[in-house]
């Protein structure tokens, strides 16, 4: 923790718990592992976003994230103008009616450049 400094035993336990929340969940995490780094999705294929994949039955129903969500993988976490409108300069509001992609994807604005 950066702003609270634990100075008794109980506080140190809380510090441990809070710090653990920041670490990502990884497979075999109980093994003595090197320091865990947060998972930062950078780019598409390496992040294995489920939208590019199929589930074990060959469909998209059983993915761990809804397939519609991958629209945002092209929107906030990487810039890929071929797939989504340019939200940085020309169309900052194009997704403003789409709060939850799974539910509201039909509200995404059409863009006519």
């Amino acid at each position, binding site marked *: 923790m950066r702003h609270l400094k634990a100075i008794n035993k*109980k506080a140190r336990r809380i510090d441990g718990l809070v710090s653990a929340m920041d670490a990502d969940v990884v497979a075999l995490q109980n093994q003595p592992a090197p320091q865990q780094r947060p998972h930062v999705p950078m780019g598409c294929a390496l992040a294995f976003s489920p939208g590019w994949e199929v589930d074990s039955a060959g469909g998209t129903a059983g993915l761990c994230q809804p397939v519609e969500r991958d629209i945002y993988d092209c929107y906030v976490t990487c810039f890929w103008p071929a797939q989504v409108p340019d939200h940085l300069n020309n169309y900052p509001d194009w997704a403003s009616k789409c709060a939850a992609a799974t539910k509201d994807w039909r509200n995404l604005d059409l863009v006519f450049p």
Partner: protein
Amino acid sequence: MTATQTCTYRLGEFHPFEAGGRQFLYLVPAGAIFEMDPSAAAVLSLLSEGAATHEELIGKLTQRDFAYHDATELVQELFRARVIVATDSIQEPLEAPPSDFPLQSLVMNLTNQCNLSCQYCYEFGDDKVATPEGKPKFMDMATAKASVDFLLEQSSGRKAVHITFFGGETLMNFPLLEQVVKYASRRAAEQGRQIDFSLTTNGTLLTPAIIEFLSQNRVGVTVSMDGPPDLQDKLRVFANGKGSYDIIAPRVKALIQNHRTRPITARVTLTKGVTDVVRIFRHLKDDLGFHEVGFAPVTTSPDRLYAIGERGMDGVLEEFHILADEYLEYALRGEMHGFSNVSDTIAELYQGVNKSHPCGAALGLMGVGPSGDIAPCHRFVDSDTHSLGNIATGVDRAKQADFLNRGHINNKYDCRTCWARPLCAGGCHHEAFVRYGDTGHPNLHYCDWIRDWTDTCLRIFGAISAQNPEFLEKFAERKALN
């Protein structure tokens, strides 16, 4: 977007304090102590004006030149540590202790007889709860052996257990004490466990031979003593009214000089007219040489002549503060000062205790009287009303559960909003019974005093942690003396 970002934040339950120019907070539901930086303090000051949604809070912080990312991280940290909360604060019920909670300490009242007639005595005085009529006056070896076996049997899983010898005047039954130490040491060794001993005495019967035995067997000694002659002799008198100071002083000096294996402590009872805490401390610490001196106001109903009134208690607290300031100076130099009231509280703050009950009575600690009757602690020994069974027949679990249920912090409505409850938990069961006729009643007559004292000790703790943190490591193994 995570769920935390749509909620409304409020201040959690904590007690803020300042020490050594730094800001701290005592997180009440946990008993945790944190030093906070100015950023954390800024969030708390914003929320002290009223609740705010995530967006409002972040907005206000960014207006104060926090970068958006820093503000989010700051709020998240405080939220996760529960310094700020988002839901209605529902006090999470403390769990009741398991019914087979293992014993750790047994207080053996070797006799209920005493050679002094201190007027305020809780065992013989006007407010006594003991009903010793028709019961044995001295414990015999069979009962003592059964008690030791009881302790070892009821403490399964513990590597180390403890016996405190008590009275009456404990040393009036020294022959039994000697035998118990030998028997218990042998039994514990057979089981590969550790046992240690301590005793409380008025000091009148100490002899060189007794002192040598106590030192050889590492028996810790607490002497009940009220100070220099004029104060000691006020209430700590023989049956003929003669004061006890002149008898005790040379014996105590010999004890401190020759008992080298454990620190020797004095335990002072404060009464009306015996409130010169600083003078008493100087005399017992500097003139007589006690390692530690602890003070407690007398347990009494409020109308007794020796009761300390509210104004008297304010004076006591002022004197406590003088010694507390001294304690801090010593601690910053890395030295022990000897004022037990601070050390005991610091020891609990170091651990971050959060008590379901004010003390270990009827949990890890029990008392046994000369008759073998089991009591929640030494103060209830020989009381028929509070008996929890007999050493021969075992603990009456229903009575024990009733006692613990009454004393549980969740059943003390007045304590629910008090920030000092993790340490106090309503205060001494016996004091509550004497004052209010119910062991489970919160000791409302000293709430302000407890809060003031806890705050004082928190500030000492904070200052030490900032300026000499190694000193606090001395408390890693120390347990509160009571």
